[in-house]
């Protein structure tokens, strides 16, 4: 199963690498969001530095949404979905593969945004273990829930508008948890941050399990 998942993930990542949509469009969009926040909140008042955890994770959510949409847009044409179903790969392996590919892209975006807030907002990060743990567990949650709701919306004509409405309320716990964990890391109160890390991990586990179980029936409709 994991070999199949790796196959699917490497296929998606190869498409991404060759089309360079992630690098040429989504990553610049991530930086753009950071600049837009700076326009909206006066950079001179120190608001940006104070609000960095929240702004960072809102940016991750919006970029993650694009990555998820992109992940199913590549399957939309040329009967690629039917080909996936005919490939004989277990639906749960398909789910893990697609989610892993999305996860890797989100992790890259996370790094881009971390560098971005360090440079543009002048934020100095402390508590690196907690920061890395939060980034990984939150990204797994976003990728798993995103892939599950992504395949659900994939076959619909209104997918671009419906997916945010379905997915973003579901990801609210991730936004709350990751923002608080970052705040704790920046404030040096890491013990509180690890509680939030626990919540993020539970969320990620639930959605990896739910996705692996429910991907099959949803793929049939896509």
């Amino acid at each position, binding site marked *: 199963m994991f070999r199949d998942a790796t196959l699917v993930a490497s296929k998606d990542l190869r498409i991404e690498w060759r089309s360079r949509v992630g690098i040429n469009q989504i990553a610049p969009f991530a930086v753009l969001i950071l600049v837009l926040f700076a326009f909206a909140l006066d950079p001179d008042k120190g608001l940006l530095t104070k609000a960095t955890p929240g702004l960072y994770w809102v940016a991750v959510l919006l970029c993650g949404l694009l990555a998820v949409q992109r992940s199913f847009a590549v399957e939309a044409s040329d009967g690629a979905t039917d080909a996936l179903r005919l490939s004989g790969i277990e639906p749960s392996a398909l789910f893990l593969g697609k989610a892993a590919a999305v996860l890797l892209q989100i992790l890259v975006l996370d790094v881009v945004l971390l560098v971005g807030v360090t440079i543009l907002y002048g934020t100095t990060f402390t508590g690196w273990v907690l920061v890395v743990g939060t980034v990984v567990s939150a990204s797994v949650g976003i990728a798993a829930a995103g892939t599950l709701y992504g395949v*659900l919306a994939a076959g*619909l004509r*209104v997918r671009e508008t*419906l997916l945010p*409405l*379905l997915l973003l*309320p*579901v990801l*609210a*716990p991730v936004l*709350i*948890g990751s923002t*608080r964990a970052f705040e704790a890391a920046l404030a040096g109160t890491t013990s*509180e941050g690890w*509680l*939030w890390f626990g*919540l993020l991990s*539970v*969320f990620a586990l*639930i959605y990896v399990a*739910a996705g692996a179980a*429910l991907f099959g*029936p*949803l793929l*049939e*409709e896509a």
Partner: protein
Amino acid sequence: MTTELHADSIPDDRPRPGEGTPIDSGPHSTGSPATRALGIAVLAGFAMLAYLGLAGTPEDQVQGELVRLLYVHPQSATVAYLGCFFATTGSVMYLWKRSVWWDLVAHATAEIGAVFTAFALITGMLWGRPSWGTYWVWDARLTSTAMLMLLLLGYLALRKLPGDPDVRARQSAIVGLLLVPNVILVRQSVTWWRTLHQAPTLSLPGAQIEGLLLFTMMFGFAVFSGLFLWLTIHRFRVAWLARQVDELAVDEAITARIAEGTPR
């Protein structure tokens, strides 16, 4: 088929439409003697609740007239959660049994749950403005109820999309299945969010409720549950009939096409 519709026949007497389809044995109108009786009882209950709530009970020493919202607000919130719970139950049962019945139960209860959630939010805001001085506070309970509303709206948006009803039912069932787990996750995270950093802002003031006030509150729960039941039964029947009409229209179109193609 010997189905002839007479314009003057009352709906309950007309021949069953969509004969031979799996959803043949169902309600043929939205009312029945039992639900009419229930409807009348609920109406009478609301009249009684309005009297008790507005005139029969005294105003509160701490909250004044605002206490009267206590007879409708917690009730609608409870019924909203009930609707959410049934929506998930219906979705799980649909995925298991694959019956139209459970699909429509989930649809009906989710829709009614959304209405009661909206009502609970509005009455909550009306209560918050005079007592907290603001319509909205980022309290755990308020925030998670607002998120519940958004989750329900997403579910209903998916339901409303046109297309094959079976496909839509399966997709909705999976979103509905995740509804309660999501509400629990959101609620847990929001509660932590609000309590790790500050003391809870909302606790029911004047927790000593007794006598007629307590009775009115409990009576409110009963009346709202009755309303929920009545609305659910009727919404379910409307949805059922709508499905039958859809299938009937397809049947008629097929018959018409076959008749057109028959050589004379």
